[in-house]
């Protein structure tokens, strides 16, 4: 049985239909990289996975549990226990600016999980140490570079021991020279065996980190394959067109 099982997902924004029966599976050692033209629903898919979107139909399972059971008219069922096992990092505004780095890391564990302050603190310092951010513990987000902010956001998600991590274009807003440090942090996480779903425009990074690349277009998976196959020998015309375009732009 797959680790993540998306079955018949239906997602609409008002009358705008994004998914009408979308299926996708992911194994527990997989790192899926989602690629596809802008506006094809990559962010929406991750937001559905995080339980941030109301879905009109279909089911999502995670591990052994029923996670989301879509239904029309806001009757979707969401298992909050499972939601807590998913972590997500966004493109923008990821950190809470009124809290220090340490405050950002400890907020959810202390306030929502009831973990002792001292315990959370030790864990936070451990994570910051691991990511080479120990000297930034008492800084405020406004005092960090964009790359550091995103790495802190990753550490903050890890504080809650997620079973699955979602990354939505976490390097897209960064200056080019800051992209690598964030990608390295994600690579480290990958090597530690964290299952991930990643949306990125960086095809080089996608090739390095993915176990499986999923090309989606107009609410459907067009092609899914390991990176060397999908990039080296795409089977579908649309995949080829898309890759030609993005690789051409990248130069």
């Amino acid at each position, binding site marked *: 049985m797959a680790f993540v099982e998306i079955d018949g997902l239906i997602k609409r924004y008002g009358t705008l239909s994004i998914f009408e029966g979308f299926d996708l599976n992911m194994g527990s050692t997989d790192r899926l990289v989602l690629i596809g033209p802008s506006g094809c629903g990559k962010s929406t898919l991750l*937001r559905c996975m*995080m*339980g*941030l979107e109301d879905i009109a139909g279909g089911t999502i399972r995670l591990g052994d549990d029923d996670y989301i059971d879509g239904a029309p008219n806001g009757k979707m069922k969401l298992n*909050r226990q499972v*939601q*807590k096992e*998913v*972590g*997500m990092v*966004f493109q*923008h*505004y*990821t*950190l*809470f*600016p*009124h809290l220090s780095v340490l405050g950002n890391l400890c*907020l*959810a564990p202390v*306030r*929502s*999980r009831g973990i002792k302050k001292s315990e959370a603190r030790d864990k936070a310092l451990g994570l910051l140490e691991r990511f080479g951010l120990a000297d930034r513990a008492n800084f*405020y*987000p*406004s005092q960090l570079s964009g790359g550091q*902010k995103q790495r802190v956001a990753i550490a*903050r*998600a890890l504080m*809650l021991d997620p079973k699955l991590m979602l990354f939505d274009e976490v390097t897209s807003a960064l200056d080019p020279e800051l992209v690598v440090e964030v990608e390295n942090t994600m690579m480290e996480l990958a090597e530690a065996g964290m299952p991930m779903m990643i949306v990125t425009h960086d095809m080089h990074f996608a090739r390095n980190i993915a176990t499986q690349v999923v090309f989606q277009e107009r609410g459907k998976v067009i092609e899914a394959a390991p990176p060397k196959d999908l990039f080296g020998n795409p089977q579908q015309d649309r995949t080829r067109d898309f890759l030609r375009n993005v690789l051409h732009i990248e130069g």
Partner: protein
Amino acid sequence: MNYEFNWFYVKKALPQLMDGLMVTLQLTLWANIIGLVLGFIVAIGMLSKIRMIVWPLTAYIEFFRCTPALIQLVWFFFCVPILFNVWWSAEFMGMLALGLNLAAFNAEAYRAAIQAIPHAHTDASTALGLNVLQRIIYVILPQALILALPVLITNGIGIFQQSALVALISVQDLMYEGRYIATQTFRPIETLTTVALIYFAVSFPVSQAVTLVERRTKRLLAS
């Protein structure tokens, strides 16, 4: 102009002016306490989106924002006792009118600040497993308060200046004492200039501080 300045009487009356200043400061303090607390409650009510709550609050805010503070004050002093058969002191009425006026303005400051917090923080909070209440208490409100702080201080110092109006309902504040001494001594220029300088001496440092606070909050919340 060959006016001969004479500061003798003003010097002599300085303790009396200081007594007036104390009354003014007390009024300002209480009006600010009302304005900060009530304004916050009103802002939360406005954001509740419950029509039964929003309507009366909107009426209250717009009434106080769209009528002169002077008429509000005089209305409280003359009309409230007759309408509600309560006979409170002029000081108390002054405090109430100024406090309600300030609360209306502060409510708008709080509301605008709460609405200015990026929606992305809601998603980030949910992704971290915070529930609605935790999100409001630990994520939205602290940021909103920081964001609103400069406006709240500006409004607060504004009410310090507006409080001079209470002299007209015979509260013995700084303005009242100033006018009294000016008439008694036939020295309006010296006396009223001194009174103006006292108002200035209190307001100016605070308004300077606002600039500083604003710069710091802007920097902190930039993301």
